[in-house]
């Protein structure tokens, strides 16, 4: 997808009208993710019940790609088991690194597939993966993510 088209058709909607942005009361896991070089700064908050992510919100600021990516991510992971969410993060990061390209794997990412072309924008890779990396980190190392 052409860059301006990517912004117009996908990124702007999530950036300007995020669905999952806000502060959560009593989250089970909270982790801040920062890209020091550009100032993207998000705090991801999750509620977990019986190993399943039942609620997710993020707060913070940053470039449109970082914000849209995390908004799409929360869309995808609510209702999934921790294991499935971690696997999905692997698929997303693989896609952005250009390592995962087969349609079958990418289908699992649903709308977030739209960010595939960020793979051709090395300067923006960190923006796109910030939320996913933070989610993976907090699920794999919950001891770092105690609210």
């Amino acid at each position: 997808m052409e860059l301006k088209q990517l912004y117009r058709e996908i990124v702007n909607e999530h950036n300007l009208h995020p669905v999952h942005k806000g502060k959560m009361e009593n989250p089970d896991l909270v982790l801040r993710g920062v890209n020091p070089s550009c100032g993207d700064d998000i705090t991801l908050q999750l509620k977990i019940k019986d190993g399943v992510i039942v609620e997710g919100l993020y707060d913070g600021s940053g470039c449109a790609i970082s914000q849209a990516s995390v908004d799409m991510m929360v869309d995808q992971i609510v209702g999934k088991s921790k294991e499935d969410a971690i696997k999905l993060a692997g698929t997303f990061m693989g896609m952005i690194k250009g390592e995962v390209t087969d349609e079958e794997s990418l289908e699992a990412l649903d709308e977030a597939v739209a960010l595939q072309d960020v793979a051709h924008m090395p300067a923006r890779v960190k923006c796109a993966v910030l939320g996913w990396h933070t989610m993976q980190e907090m699920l794999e190392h919950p001891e770092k993510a105690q609210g």
Partner: protein
Amino acid sequence: MSNLGDFRKDFDQLNSGDYVYFDNAATSQRPRQVLEAVSNFYKTANANPLRGLYDWSMAATDAYENSRAVVADFIGASRAEEIIFTRNTTESLNLVAYSYGLENVHEGDEIVISVMEHHSNMLPWQMVAKKNNAKLVFMEPLEDGTITEQEYKSKITDKTKIVAIGHVSNVMGVTNPVKEIAEYAHSKGAIVVVDGAQSAPHMKVDVKDLGADFFALSGHKMLAPMGIGALYGRYELLEQMQPFLRGGEMIEYVTREDATYAEIPHKFEAGTVNAGDAVGLAEAIKYIQNVGFDAIEAQEQKLTTMLMEGLAKLPYIKVYGSKDPKKHCGIVTFTMDGVHPHDMASILNDDHICVRAGHHCAQPLMQFIGAGSTARASVYFYNTESEVERFLDKLSKVREVMGYGA
């Protein structure tokens, strides 16, 4: 006055497509003459300089030492030995911090810098202060970037041992009152270190007139190759300093336990030197002198004025620093309401326009001006009015791409 259009023909990359290069404060482009001078060195004078006793090595030595003399003359040093070749401004400033700072700043002493410093003129002094239990004191500018007389006189005291100051801020573009600050610092017994990375490419520098005890510059910001820079140091100070790096080509006599060091400047140039790029730096200086600082400043001011007038017409743009284009040294830093600078830079890149976005290696300044990140357009003499027009046109369309209506 020179015809600047003719000079632009020497820059192959600028003429290779339809890119507008407005990131000159990060690094400049290089003219063919500089690249040929480097290439000629390796084709005709290639041997290890400073030690061989044969013709080729002597030719390499001559080329290298002649380049030193060119740099010395360019910034008004009294003798060539006062110029030490380094990789860049960062290395030059670290050399001063390690070899002068650590030895001469003691517990309870103070080092004064400004909050506008590039990290390369901040982190070395943080290191010296921490290691020797000294205090790092920050001068703060007004909103337009001015460091007032009252400000520097309140921060520089009898406790101050070093004042380290950027000649021109890489974010605000403001030229600091280095001469006045140096005079006051000297009256308090401090020495003055000047980061000249952003001034040397754009204005005539005279280290003696400025009162700089040390002056650092980067070749790559002034048409020379990456990886060559210089440090000017006052002869008496360099003589009493210990080497920064130790090894080959910087010794006088070595035993198993001890060594005496070569005379300056070679004491500070351990290992095989970057003679090829030193030759490139000398050629770059000749090129700049041929263009002339009057013509360089006139063109930069014309373009900066156009830039700032154009940006002022866009109500959602905020420009940092002085309202006067003459006080920007070709650097215009700005933000756009609702649009992160990285999105802006990506969208401009889609239109083949190169600007910098981020914190510009000046995070404490970003905190001070209350911007997490900014965009920066910086011009040099080879940029043109039509490039400014194209930049302003494309910039005015960024908000639409970002979903803010037409």
